[in-house]
């Protein structure tokens, strides 16, 4: 059982390594979207400092959603997805492994890049820790919920925009609590409660999302 | 009955635009939904007649 999961993760990471451009496009998209806001909203530091967490979180959310169709679409096209459906290992676990690999490739880079962008927004240094921690807890939840959306819209025309329409409402709680964590830190309330809540989201999503995505996959491949 | 007369009723205490705006849109949308539904029903039945014609002309 474990060998299969390790094999799936290793394969996906190998594929991502072989096609590095996919990883970079997600990261560059994240950086570009964040850099657009000062151009749009004006460069005054005071303004940028207040909108920094919100902007970085929304950009991370959009970037991770952009990378979602890479999760199943390619496997569906070349038939490997059917082999996963017919494997002796429960599909939920395979989906969890794939989502973990997907997060390592498209979620983690965002978390590591966020402090650099926070500098751009002149965010006070003590808040960096909370920002990175909230993203580290939040982006896996985005990938997990996104996996359900990706599975539902497999092979459907207009997939990209449709995926966004399905998944964005479900991202709202994660966005509010995630961006709110830094906000609460700034207003002196302390981000303890928010980070714990994000961790709770992560645990619940990790427990249920892969199985729901597995059901959705079986429906889509039929 | 707390209205002086019909003109008083329609003025709605100065909030006519907001009150009638909401009521008009609400019931307008409900009526529109019914109209669209009946049109969809007519189209479905026409489709059946069409396919029946095709099957045994």
């Amino acid at each position, binding site marked *: 059982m474990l*060998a*299969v999961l390790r*094999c*799936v993760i290793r*394969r996906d990471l*190998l*594929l991502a390594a*072989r*096609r590095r451009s996919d990883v970079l496009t997600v990261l560059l998209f994240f950086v570009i979207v964040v850099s657009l806001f000062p151009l749009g909203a004006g460069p005054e530091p005071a303004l940028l400092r207040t909108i920094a967490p919100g902007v970085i979180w929304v950009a991370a959310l959009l970037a991770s959603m952009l990378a979602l169709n890479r999760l199943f679409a390619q496997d569906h*096209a*070349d*038939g*490997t997805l*059917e*082999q*996963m*459906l*017919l*494997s*002796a*290992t*429960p599909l939920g676990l395979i989906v969890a492994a794939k989502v973990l690999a997907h997060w390592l490739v498209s979620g983690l880079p965002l978390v590591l890049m966020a402090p650099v962008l926070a500098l751009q927004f002149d965010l006070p240094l003590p808040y960096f820790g909370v920002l990175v921690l909230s993203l580290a807890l939040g982006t896996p939840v985005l990938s997990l919920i996104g996996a359900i959306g990706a599975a539902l819209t497999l092979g459907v025309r207009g997939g990209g925009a449709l995926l966004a329409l399905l998944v964005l409402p479900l991202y709202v709680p994660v966005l509010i609590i995630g961006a709110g964590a830094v906000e609460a830190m700034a207003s002196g309330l302390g981000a303890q409660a928010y980070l714990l809540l994000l961790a709770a989201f992560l645990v619940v999503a990790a427990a249920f999302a892969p199985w729901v995505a597995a059901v959705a996959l079986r429906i889509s*491949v*039929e | 009955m707390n209205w002086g007369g019909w003109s008083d009723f329609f003025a709605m205490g100065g909030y006519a635009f907001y009150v009638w705006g909401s009521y008009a849109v609400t019931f307008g949308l409900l009526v529109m939904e019914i109209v669209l539904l009946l049109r969809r029903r007519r189209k479905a039945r026409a489709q059946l007649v069409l396919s029946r014609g095709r099957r045994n002309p």
Partner: protein
Amino acid sequence: MLEAVDLRCERGARTLFRGLGFRLRGGELLRVTGANGTGKTSLLRIVCGLLAPAQGEVRWHGGDIRVLREEFWGRLVYIGHANAIKDDLTAAENLAVSCTLGGSSADDAQVRAALRQLGLAGCEDLPVRALSQGQRRRVALARLVPSGAVPLWVLDEPFTALDAAAVDVVQQLISGHVAGGGAVFYTTHLEASIAAAVSLCIDLDRGAG
């Protein structure tokens, strides 16, 4: 071993076949023939559990496959139209992954031996992108070599895009498997002569087989 009862399959509004049943025991070969679009692939997907039939049931050793699920899927190798290989990976990596996924773990030596048996000596470490369509099909079919222990093989058009030599190798693999007590359920247009103790046939052209 494998039994189907009163299967009915619908695609869109059309009923492809109804009331179809068969029984496949160890050491038997079952071929499905029929013109294009008569539902050969759909029947295969129903037997594998990928597609739910509109009516009827598929049983493995008496148990409904929808209940057995992973237990049944562990006893089955399915090779469909698509080759289920990744262009960016090399042939060896692809085979290693598909074997692990299928449950029959194969170490590197077995993988290379299987590829050599399918006439892919020398191409093991090339990215599959560089291989021809026939060679890719061989990589997909090379999976059969290490899965001798898996009782049921379900093959969809195994011989397409293969040259005479490859067809010969695959035929030996199939008859070897059947002789060893396994069952093979396959579709093909090629008049393949596969030696087997019992070989049945379902012809979807004449309606229910």
